[in-house]
Structure formats: C-alpha cells, structure tokens
C-alpha cells in the first residue's frame, strides 16, 4: 500500500480529467470532419480506438479530404507519430512489468500521458498518472469521436466553417511545441516549404517534404547566448 494520504493523488485525477475534457473538443471536431471527408462512423471510431494519436488522425484525414493518396496520408501521419517512440523511451523506466502489460501500455503512449507521467515525483505516482490519464483521454477521445461522427453526417461542414476546426486544432497543438527559438524557426520553415511545394507536388507530399526540415535536429542545439 501507498502510505501517503489518498487526497494527495487529487492533483493527478483533476488534471487528468481536465486533459480529457480538452481532447473531447478535438475529438468531436475530428468525428465531424472525418465523416464529412468520406469516412463513415465505423471508420472514424476505428481510427480513434486503434490509432489513438490525435494529431496523426487529423493529419491523415486532412490529406485524404484534400484528395491526397492513401500512401501519402499514412506516411505523413506516421512521421508525425514518430514522437511517440521517444515518449515510450522516456516513460519506460516507470512502466516496467510483464510483456503483455507493456504491450498494453504502448497503446496509450501519447503526448498527454507522457506529460502527466513525467510531471510526477515518485515512481508510484508516475505509474498512477499514466493509467489515470490514459483512461480519461481514451474515454473522452472515443466518446467525442462518436458524437462528432454521428452528428457529422447530417451537417454541412462548409456552411458552418467546420473545415477550419482542423487548422484551428493544429494551431492549439503546435503552440506549446514552439517555445524554443529553434522550434519556432523549424515551424516557420515547415510552413514555407509546404506552401512553396504545393503547386508542384501531389497532394499530401508537401507535408512529408516539410517534415524533412526537422533534420536540422541532427546538429546539437546551439548554446543560448
């Protein structure tokens, strides 16, 4: 048994619920746009239940909706999902256990669970934070997708400006990631590369080409002056 008072874990349950509610809004917009982009309710649900990494789901649907090929949609989304491999390495020391346990934990290795896990101070609290956040996000994400997907088939997304839900969501997702000068420059360069190559490349490919900008990360970060 954990000998610290149970009230101490309230600072895990509260933020986990808040994060769940935040992704709920993303999930509803995902469901709506996924269905209107030629998906179906089962496809939207399969994406959220199985893929379960928000930005990549949005990315794939966005490329398909614009008329891109399946290959470019999946490739771009997987490049975006590669960060989950880094997250797995970062949280692995606290999610030790039998193979089935780790295989199950892998499905929930995403931005929010990693952030919550690493924010705790003891191994027990890190493990608890991982699973509580995973449960909260997984439930909200899938319920939100279902609501959006069911509503989406009866909504004129253009009329209500819902096509902008995706770029607005991307703006919110990228904001915490571009705090350093280097990340800001990489983001700007990615934007420029995308626009500059759009007229010349098949739909979806500019996103993949833009991701190559991240290769500047091979060089060690310059020392701040």
């Amino acid at each position, binding site marked *: 048994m954990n000998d610290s008072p149970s009230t101490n874990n309230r600072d895990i349950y509260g933020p986990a619920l808040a994060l769940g509610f935040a992704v709920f809004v993303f999930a509803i917009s995902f469901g709506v746009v996924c269905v209107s982009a030629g998906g179906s309710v089962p496809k939207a649900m399969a994406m959220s239940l199985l893929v379960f990494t928000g930005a990549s789901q949005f990315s794939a649907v966005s490329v398909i909706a614009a008329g891109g090929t399946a290959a470019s949609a999946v490739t771009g989304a997987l490049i975006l999902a590669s960060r989950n491999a880094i997250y797995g390495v970062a949280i692995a020391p606290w999610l030790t256990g039998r193979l089935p346990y780790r295989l199950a934990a892998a499905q929930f290795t995403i931005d929010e669970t990693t952030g919550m896990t690493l924010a705790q101070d003891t191994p027990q609290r890190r493990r608890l934070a991982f699973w509580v956040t995973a449960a909260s996000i997984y439930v909200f994400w899938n319920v939100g997708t279902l609501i959006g997907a069911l509503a989406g088939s009866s909504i004129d997304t253009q009329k209500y400006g819902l096509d902008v839900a995706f770029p607005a969501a991307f703006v*919110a997702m990228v904001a915490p990631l571009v705090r350093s000068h280097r990340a800001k420059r990489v983001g700007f360069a*990615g934007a420029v590369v995308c626009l500059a190559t759009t007229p010349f490349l098949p739909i979806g490919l500019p996103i993949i080409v833009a991701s190559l900008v991240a290769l500047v990360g091979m060089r060690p970060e310059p020392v701040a002056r």
Partner: protein
Amino acid sequence: MSWAVVIGLSVGAYLLKALGLVVIGDRKFPPRYEGVIALVPAAVLCALIMKDTFTNGQELVIDARMAGVSLAVVGVWCRVPLWLVIVASCAATALVRAVS
C-alpha cells in the same frame, strides 16, 4: 477514406509506440535521432496549418478560412479556452462565407 488507411495507420502508429516503450525500453535512444524527432511536430503541424488554410488541391488560395485560422492564432496566443478557440474560428469562417 479507405479501410486501408485506417488499418495501415493503426498498425504503424502502434508499432511506433511499442518501439519506444517495449523494444527500446530504457536503453538509450541515439541523441541525433531524438533531436530530429523532437522537431518533427513543429514542422509538420505548421505545414498542415498552411495546407488547411491556404491551399485548395494544388492551388494556393486566400479565402474565408484565413479569417478563422487567424482568429485561432490570436485565441491561442491569449490563452482562450480551447473549445472557444475552435467554436470561434468556425463561426468566423462561416460568417465570412455568409457575407461574401
């Protein structure tokens, strides 16, 4: 959207998650790759914002979406709650479309 996309993405995304947590585990990830992968979301998300705001197929366009996404940038900058950012961006875009 085909089932191939759904299944391909499901398998690929799971393998990437398991690669970190299960395969590499608490062994060390080469720092060069870590630097690159850490910068990928900034590059890709900014590219996606541009694509979803200023492109229509292979064409570059400026239309009502710019109003909505600009409002999203201001909203996120001012730390407006997320749901309000998304609702306001969609409403602004719908409004511009309705009057133009």
